[in-house]
């Protein structure tokens, strides 16, 4: 049963990630990325990370992707008629990287077996565990993350402003 779910999610994730790169129209690319985000969230549920699945849908699909679509509509971009001129080099590099990864995985099969997943521990739920780790062990990174968001907010406002030197009338 786990395998069926995994292969369904994996197939859709692989197909939609290819479509993101291959489709000429940026709106279609963004929409296939939306489908991919939902299936990644499903994969998280099968991995017992329910909180992250919810966050994935709310933040990625709800906020980040809407922002992308908003900018695509704002700039009214036509679909591009051709790929970048470095396509042959990029294709070669992609094929080389792909064979490298496949070779590494084939070699690792003969090595030590991956640790088998133990049964899920009966205890506090996923969200409680994340919250406990986030607010005790990772309290300082958590505060730094808030600083990163503040800097991004200020930077986005300043960059997207019409003219920073223009006096306000």
């Amino acid at each position: 049963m786990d395998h069926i779910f995994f292969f369904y999610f994996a197939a859709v994730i692989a197909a939609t990630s290819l479509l993101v790169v291959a489709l000429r129209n940026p709106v279609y690319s963004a929409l296939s990325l939306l489908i991919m985000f939902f299936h990644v969230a499903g994969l998280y549920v099968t991995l017992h990370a329910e909180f992250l699945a919810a966050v994935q849908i709310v933040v990625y699909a709800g906020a980040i992707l809407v922002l992308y679509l908003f900018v695509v509509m704002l700039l009214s971009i036509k679909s591009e008629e051709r790929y970048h001129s470095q396509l042959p080099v990029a294709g070669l590099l992609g094929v080389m990287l792909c064979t490298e990864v496949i070779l590494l995985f084939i070699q690792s099969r003969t090595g030590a077996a991956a640790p088998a997943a133990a049964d899920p521990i009966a205890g506090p739920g996923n969200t409680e565990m994340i919250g406990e780790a986030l607010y005790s062990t990772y309290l300082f990174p958590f505060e730094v993350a808030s600083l990163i968001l503040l800097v991004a907010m200020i930077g986005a406002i300043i960059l997207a402003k019409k003219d920073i030197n223009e006096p306000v009338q």
Partner: protein
Amino acid sequence: MAVPLSYYLILSGFVFLTGVVGVLIRRNIIVILLSVELMLNATNINFVAFSEYFHNVAGQVFVFFALTVAAAEVAVGLAIIIALHRAHSSIYIDDLNLLKR
């Protein structure tokens, strides 16, 4: 029977490579940023899979931070794209060759 860890690694490797190729072959800056999102999601899948298999919640906390950085990257990146479009009225990287001239 549980899915082996290597399956998740292969999936995330495939998605990551798709993102790398997307960054290299596309001319539209918005689609290049979408490909960066693909790469970030591939690493997130890895983090969550390892977190499940080692029973360590730290991996999921790191996905949380990766998500924060992704949100910041999108906000600043899209602001840069809007500023570029205003200055050059184009968002194709072929047209942005100011340093080459």
